[in-house]
């Protein structure tokens, strides 16, 4: 049924921290690895070792350069389905293969009934749906629906593969419909925002903006400086005892 549920009991989604993401692609590769053997048919690749390799991935990590000169910065930008509350990708689907779950708000494609008309991908402003050329059906982020409720996994693994894989903790998973949840608090605290809210699709996933830049005048105050620096600055680095202790410290910490 491609008409949307009026409300969903939960609004499960991701909060992505653009401040701490380092663009390492761990989430994207972990996603591909899990989902090529998970919920839907495998995520096929075309011409993988040839001149024009491409394939279906559910998570894409862009890197942008933002601003000019001294104030410029690099921002890594993971992009996947935002599990919108009122997405046209679902309502345009002629078969009912695309649907939004009333229980948790996850937007899914049924690989058994999708006819591969690709209309849903046209309706998504976020470029989040990728057609699988080998299987002839549409693929998209499932929020790892086959992990998050999976009781055969350890409790700490019952989160989307991307969240589990992120080495910098830049990805958070939870119920954004519950204002007391960790993710909702994080969004409130850090000024989380929606991508292109003007479309009215009401994305559930939120992005946390990069923190303000720190320079000589705004950098962390003394209490954040590593203690060892202070010690070093007091000592004469050329003194034999200091060199000895530095050497001993190195050897012992191996």
């Amino acid at each position, binding site marked *: *049924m*491609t*008409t949307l549920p009026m409300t969903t009991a939960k609004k499960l989604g991701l909060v992505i921290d653009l401040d701490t993401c380092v663009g390492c692609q761990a989430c*994207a590769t972990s996603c591909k690895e899990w989902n090529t053997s998970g919920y839907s048919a495998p995520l096929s690749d075309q011409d993988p070792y040839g001149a*024009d*390799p*491409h*394939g*279906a*991935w559910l998570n*894409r990590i*862009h890197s*942008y*350069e*933002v*601003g*000019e000169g001294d*104030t*410029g910065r690099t*921002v890594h*930008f993971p*992009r996947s389905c935002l599990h919108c509350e009122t997405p*046209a990708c*679902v*309502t*345009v*689907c*002629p*078969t*009912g*293969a695309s649907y939004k779950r009333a229980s948790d708000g996850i937007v899914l494609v049924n690989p058994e*009934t*999708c*006819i*591969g*008309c*690709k*209309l849903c*991908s*046209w*309706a*998504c*402003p*976020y*470029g989040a*749906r*990728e*057609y*699988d*050329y080998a299987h*002839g*059906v549409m693929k998209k982020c499932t929020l790892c629906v086959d992990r998050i409720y999976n009781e055969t996994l350890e409790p700490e693994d019952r989160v989307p593969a991307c969240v589990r894989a992120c080495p910098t903790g830049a990805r958070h998973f939870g119920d954004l419909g519950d204002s007391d949840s960790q993710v909702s608090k994080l969004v409130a605290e850090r000024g989380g*925002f*929606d*991508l*292109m809210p*003007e*479309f009215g699709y009401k994305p559930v996933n939120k*992005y946390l*903006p990069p923190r303000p830049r720190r320079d000589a005048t705004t950098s962390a105050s003394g209490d954040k400086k590593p203690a060892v620096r202070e010690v070093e600055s007091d000592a004469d680095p050329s003194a034999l005892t200091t060199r000895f202790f530095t050497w001993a410290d190195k050897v012992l910490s191996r």
Partner: protein
Amino acid sequence: MHPAYSVIYFTCATGAGYGLLIWLAVFAMMGALPLTPAFGLAGLGVSMALVVTGLLSSTSHLGRPERAWRAFSQWRSSWLSREGVFAIATFVPVAVLALGWIVEGRSDGVYAVAAAAAAVSALVTVYCTGMIYQSLPTIRAWNLPMVTPIYLALGLATGAVLMVALMAGFGALAQAHLMLTLAVLGGAWLLKFAYWSTIDGAPREWKIGAATGLGRFGQVRPLDPPHSKPNFVMREMGYQVARKHALKLRRMAIALGFAVPAGLLITVLLGGLQAAAFPLAVLAAMSALAGVLVERWLFFAEAEHVAMLYYGKQEA
């Protein structure tokens, strides 16, 4: 947007087929055409051949054509589903109309009702086709109120030129047919001309800064793409014809779609060329269809998708 030939042929052929069907049904109801079996076979035959080949072509665009029947289920929300439902529903009154016309040589009573139903159902089908595109907010050049009227107008125009060819073939061509066809053809291409000036003049409101939410920190430029070769999104949504080619193709569409058929029809009209009317009208119909094919190719190739902002387009 990637111009898929299966979809281009589908929309042009069904547009012309349903357009012709509408004229046939209306003229039959009014008793304004020869109710002979030969005319019925030729008219309904050409119209249904265009519709059926168009529908078949559309299924070749699908990744899973064997599941196409599933597309009839979501008419509550999906214009694509509604289009499918009405496309199939139209065959029912057409069959009744064909029975009356070809077998019984009649178009009154129940056959008139069937003719009216066929015309309305055909009109609604083309309307649904237009709405599939018009209803997408992600594509600025499609999300315009004149998109669906243009689909209807060009369908009716190509159908009208086909109708003229048929009438000429059966020696039943009247001046009124020619004048009506010229008016419909002119009106349709005037609308299309207005469309092109609209999309050329419209501001490109969607910016890369809004797409990424990073605009507040300054100009956003792509640094590292997520993949080394185009993915599905770039292949499907990233196709765009160069502006100077587009302008050339627009002129070609107007020449083939409007100028040539209008010129031929005017020649027939003013020259009173009864003998040459049929070949000239067939030529006009072929040219009109070719013009609409070019127009439809451009409809896709000139349309920008907002998702391309993530791939470095500054605005869309």
